[in-house]
């Protein structure tokens, strides 16, 4: 049996992946005003690589991505219940988060959300059910 370490705990990798996505979005905002764009763009590329690696470790390797994206006919009743619970929670979380972001942009009069935030939200919408499954620590 594989020994559980800090790095192979699903929760740890889920948090790391969320941090990398947040870092990509924040760094992109800085990139707009930065003088040394090449240095920041290089740093952004490193974070994108880190995001891909943490995605692989958190969602692909653990089977979380497969579980939340597979057709329901291929799941048994317990798995369907797990996925449906995670979808229900992620729907609420995603709606609240999106509304908060849109409100924040309206309040600071920054105009519509930019493409990187939109892409981040799209990615977030896709991984959220898997993240909730992993966070709740169920076997899949």
């Amino acid at each position, binding site marked *: 049996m594989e020994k559980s370490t800090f790095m192979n705990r699903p929760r740890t990798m889920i948090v790391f992946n969320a941090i990398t996505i947040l870092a990509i979005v924040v760094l992109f905002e800085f990139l707009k005003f930065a003088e040394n764009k090449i240095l920041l763009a290089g740093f952004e590329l490193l974070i994108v690589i880190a995001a891909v690696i943490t995605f692989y470790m958190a969602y692909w390797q653990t089977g979380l991505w497969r579980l939340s994206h597979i057709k329901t006919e291929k799941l*048994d009743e317990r798995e369907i219940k797990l996925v449906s619970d995670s979808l229900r929670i992620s729907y609420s979380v995603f709606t609240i988060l999106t509304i908060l972001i849109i409100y924040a942009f309206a309040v600071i009069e920054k105009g519509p959300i930019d493409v990187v935030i939109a892409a981040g939200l799209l990615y977030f919408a896709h991984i959220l059910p898997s993240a909730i499954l992993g966070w709740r620590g169920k076997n899949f």
Partner: protein
Amino acid sequence: MKSRKLYNRIALLRLERRMSRQELADKIGVNFQTIGYLEREEYNPSLDLAFRISEVFELPIPFIFSTAPLKALSDELLNREIK
């Protein structure tokens, strides 16, 4: 509505028949990890799944599942009360 905990004899019956979790899972059409959840009584099966399990073991559902803690089979045979 919160469902009641269901007690079962799946682990005992499976071991008695020298069946692996994977074999039982294949026979009733679920993931082998679901067998673990059922055996640990962490998941209540649907009526359909309960029927499938009873068909595999060729035993009536009330013998496999109960809403009260199940007596040991030796006690059941001798019709003794649980202490």
